[in-house]
């Protein structure tokens, strides 16, 4: 007991408000390892099911924090960061004995281990009876990462089990709580674009919707602007969601959308692909039977490769291609680069605040329908281009001027990586 008291934090803390009681990050590593301890499998679910549920539980925290979680089945047990196990009554050398079915169904030790009471009826993902092992696992992992209990309705960190439909997600406040400990997700993007969906409603009227996509390496996110977060369960692998385009490191996406034209192109290296929105796959060949991918120099004469990025400017019906510090304005109707181009980026898109400019090698030029503005991404910051609305409010602003840079993660939230081993879950 004396030993335990040495280990345990001092008594105290604010009983009234259990939400913000001095929590601090528990780990200072970016990638944490975990393992379901071999001699402590549950007797209720198959081992694969248990491991899958835990892998999903860790992934769910990874989707909202800069942390990665990797299942480690081989390293010496002592070096594994988080160990999970099932037990009944007195278990796994733990000083805290489980009470049988009912009441206490699991507990966690900060910086260490998670124990589940195998007398409880833990159920898999598809079940809506019993106690969802996924929900309990996400809760206990929250403790291990440093989050305390809270009585906030909707939080996964409520002390009592709340039976509800099997689908649950980390809500906004839980995300902010864990991000207060580990920071928000940062990182550069290969490209970002809005994808237009055209639908006919029951009256036959065409309706236009759009989704925002962020591409990074071989995975991507759909960003739900109205919910200020990525889609639940993203990122996904590009090759699972987009067919016929390169599976990684896309340079640019351009949507030529004007009266009578609706063409979508992906660019990588010295080639480009055209994408068929209806069939959700890249065209194999054009109307003349010539195959895709094609050389950029053929389809867009005068445009260099490999590109940094590109976007389509609908009012002027120009595609702006970016490479290093240069901009090429391509007239899609005359199929050629304007004579006065290429120009310096700083000339076409001048900085409003001196020296506050990306100058060269931007990652992505993204026209957002949600914000009716163009954004230049570079690393984990963005520059917003002066829009018509901005100029109506302040005519002194330069045409196509760039506002000072800001952090991408403060405008687009929770665009987080997950460990490669869980990417295709």
């Amino acid at each position, binding site marked *: 007991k004396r030993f335990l008291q040495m280990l345990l934090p001092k008594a105290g803390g604010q009983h009234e408000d259990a939400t913000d009681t001095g929590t601090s990050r528990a780990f200072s590593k970016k990638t944490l390892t975990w393992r379901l301890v071999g001699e402590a499998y549950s007797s209720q679910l198959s081992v694969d099911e248990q491991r899958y549920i835990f892998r999903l539980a860790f992934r769910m925290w990874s989707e909202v924090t800069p942390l990665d979680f990797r299942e480690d089945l081989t390293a010496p047990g002592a070096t594994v960061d988080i*160990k999970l196990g099932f037990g009944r009554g007195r278990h796994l050398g733990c000083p805290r004995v489980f009470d*049988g079915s*009912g009441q*206490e169904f699991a507990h966690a030790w900060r910086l260490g281990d998670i124990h589940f009471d195998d007398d*409880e009826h833990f159920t898999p993902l598809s079940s809506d009876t019993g106690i969802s092992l996924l929900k309990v696992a996400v809760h206990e992992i929250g403790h291990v990462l440093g989050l*305390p209990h809270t009585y906030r309705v909707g939080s996964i960190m409520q002390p009592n089990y709340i039976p509800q439909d099997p689908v649950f997600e980390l809500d906004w406040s839980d995300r902010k709580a864990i991000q207060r400990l580990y920071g928000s997700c940062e990182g550069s993007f290969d490209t970002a674009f809005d994808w237009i969906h055209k639908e006919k409603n029951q009256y036959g009227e065409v309706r236009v919707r759009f989704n925002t996509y962020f591409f990074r390496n071989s995975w991507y996110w759909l960003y739900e602007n109205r919910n200020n977060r990525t889609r639940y369960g993203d990122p996904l692998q590009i090759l699972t969601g987009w067919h016929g385009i390169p599976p990684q490191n896309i340079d640019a996406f351009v949507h030529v959308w004007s009266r009578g034209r609706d063409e979508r192109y992906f660019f990588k290296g010295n080639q480009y692909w055209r994408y068929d929105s209806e069939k959700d796959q890249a065209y194999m060949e054009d109307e003349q039977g010539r195959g895709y991918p094609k050389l950029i120099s053929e389809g867009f004469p005068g445009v260099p490769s490999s590109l940094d990025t590109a976007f389509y400017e609908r009012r002027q019906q120009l595609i702006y291609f970016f490479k290093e510090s240069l901009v090429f304005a391509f007239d899609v109707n005359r199929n050629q680069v304007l004579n006065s181009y290429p120009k310096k980026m700083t000339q076409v898109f001048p900085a409003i605040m001196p020296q506050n400019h990306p100058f060269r090698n931007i990652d992505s030029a993204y026209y957002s329908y949600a914000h009716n503005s163009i954004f230049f991404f570079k690393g984990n910051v963005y520059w917003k281009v002066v829009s018509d609305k901005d100029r109506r409010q302040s005519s002194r602003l330069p045409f196509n001027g760039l506002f000072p840079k800001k952090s991408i993660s403060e405008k687009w939230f929770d665009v987080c990586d997950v460990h490669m081993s869980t990417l295709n879950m």
Partner: protein
Amino acid sequence: ERLFHSRDRSDLEPSPLSRAKPIADLHAAQRFLSRYGWSEVPSVWGTSPQGSAEAPVGSTLAQAMRRFQRANSLPASGKLDSPTLAAMNRPRCGVPDTRLPPQSALSTPPAPIIPYSPRPRSRP
């Protein structure tokens, strides 16, 4: 094997021996309040549910009870009434409600510290 008849084992019966003793009286309630950190008395994670945690007494018990009731959106009477007992008997996590879980008694040695760690990890 524990007894079940449906494929998804949804009717799995816990073995009678290992059912948690319901919290039904003041003594059990005192232990619950102490165990989950609702009493002012330093709560020691007991070595067993029946454990030797010091239970709050007197007005401190009523205060602890009221704190628990308030947190669970129950009338803060300070008395052990049936809604309070029901709240205490709901399935729950074993980590105390009012503070972070203690460090693992089984803890692993500290992992190598990446330079940007704000503070050194304490050794077990």
